[in-house]
């Protein structure tokens, strides 16, 4: 166990800020920047006074940010964690070191999860700040229901971390993690996540939705109400399930990664 943590820690340190030298990071930052830019434009040019109606905020943070940008950013940055090493064939160097193979997945994933979380939380914070009007500094975020700001940030953070673990594991499990990730996000979760019925429980987005909206039922608006007649999970149980998904993905990815012989084409 000690070897695992030591090797993971070394790889984590070595690769931590390296991600920002790669083109992937800039694509991810551009993606995360889109909601912020749109929020800024809406804010500067919007013709309604005061803070925008909550629906606009929810549209930006939930539909746009958490349901599309968070998985995309996680996919772009995390899917390459193992897949890139295999494709570039640099995995040979790590395989011929006296370290347990799961440490490679754990170390490299951590080195990517942290930047992902930072980028996404920064984007969420900026979006929320931008959508409330300047000037009435006193009231600042007073118009927002108690604790919504905090739970938005936490949802984005948890989403980023869990999705990055999923896609890092996908990198170890499948040949083309990018396509698998896109398929999962937009087809599986996009479709299954929005279908009424208990099958929603099999998607990450359900638990994120439960965490964010369970206390702010009213915010979900009537449209969502009709679709998601399924009762939302308690926040604490939602977090627990997310943690379980995270651990499950990492363990499965690590197990497959250890067993699989990477026959690198000659």
């Amino acid at each position: 166990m000690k070897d695992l943590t030591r090797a993971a820690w070394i790889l984590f340190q070595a690769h931590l800020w390296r991600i920002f030298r790669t083109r992937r990071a800039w694509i991810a930052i551009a993606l995360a920047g889109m909601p912020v830019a749109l929020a800024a434009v809406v804010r500067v040019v919007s013709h309604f006074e005061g803070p925008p109606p909550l629906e606009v905020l929810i549209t930006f943070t939930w539909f746009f940010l958490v349901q599309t940008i968070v998985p995309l950013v996680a996919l772009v940055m995390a899917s390459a964690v193992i897949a890139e090493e295999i494709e570039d064939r640099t995995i040979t160097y790590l395989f011929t070191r006296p370290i347990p193979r799961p440490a490679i997945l754990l170390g490299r994933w951590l080195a990517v999860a942290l930047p992902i979380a930072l980028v996404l939380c920064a984007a969420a914070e900026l979006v929320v700040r931008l959508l409330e009007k300047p000037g009435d500094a006193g009231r600042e975020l007073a118009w927002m229901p108690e604790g919504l700001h905090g739970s938005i940030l936490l949802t984005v953070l948890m989403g980023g971390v869990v999705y990055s673990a999923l896609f890092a594991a996908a990198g170890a499990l499948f040949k083309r993690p990018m396509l698998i990730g896109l398929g999962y996000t937009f087809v599986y979760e996009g479709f299954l996540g929005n279908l009424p019925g208990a099958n929603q429980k099999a998607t990450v987005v359900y638990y994120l939705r439960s965490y964010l909206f369970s206390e702010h039922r009213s915010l979900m608006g009537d449209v969502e109400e009709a679709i998601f007649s399924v009762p939302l999970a308690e926040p604490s149980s939602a977090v627990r399930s997310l943690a379980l998904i995270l651990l499950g993905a990492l363990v499965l990815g690590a197990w497959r990664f250890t067993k699989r012989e990477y026959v690198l084409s000659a």
Partner: protein
Amino acid sequence: MKAETHLEVYRRFQGELRDDPLRFWPLTATGLRTALKQRRALLVLYLPALIVTVILCFVVYIKFTAMDALQGKKLDFEEQLVRGMVLAQAEQMLSVVNIILQFSKGMGSFALLAVTWFASGLFCEDKKAGAHQLYFARPITRLDYFLGKFLIASFFALCAMLVPLLAVCIVASVTSPEWSFLKQEWDVFLRVIAFSLLWTIVTCSLVLLASSLASRRSFALLGVFGFVMLSVPVAGLLGDFVDHDFYALALLADLDALAQHVFGKLAPDAKLAAGPAWTAVTAFLLFSWTVIGLRLRRLEVVA
């Protein structure tokens, strides 16, 4: 018969190497032959287009014959019933020109799909396979290379648009009583050709831009779909909140606006006026050609 042995292993080439202006043409010819080998893709993409075209021709045919049958001819009961129904339906339908207008918009998006599938690998696959080293060791310039590839992409776009549209126009002229369609609406042919060429240039530039930027064909495919899909919500949001002209940021919105304009049917209260659509499209074309030019410059110097 005098015995002779031709053991020379290597024979010199007697023919001559012409320097004709169409230097890029072999690139197009061989590229097309290779692309047309993808039988399945051709079937999957172009068969539905063919079916839609045939149906539309049939509709146009009925419209004209129904009007013709109107001028007196005793008909028994069922025939009247059927013709009445058809006539009602034909009447609802706008004039034939509107049919063609809607059809060209539909075919425009289909052309985008076809070009994206067949042409998104043109530059990036060459770069990945190192083909540029072979091409640029030959007497062709970067412009020839671009033109050659552009024509390959345009072939697929024109097949997707020009051919079906002209078919419908011809059927309309033939079946219309005493060629009335041709006499009154002859300018439709010109508009169809103009719009097809315009839209071919736009789609090919977009796909070749993605192909020149991407490192792999799948990324180029993703890039084109991403751009087209993302431009819709972005333009929508900006258009709603900021200014209607921003609708022009969505390529598909431009498609509709330009089609309306070329066919002279632009409704005054349309969400997107023709002006911004034209500026957006021309800006996009200039942008894409300069970027492609820069990317090809890096490819050219070989060793």
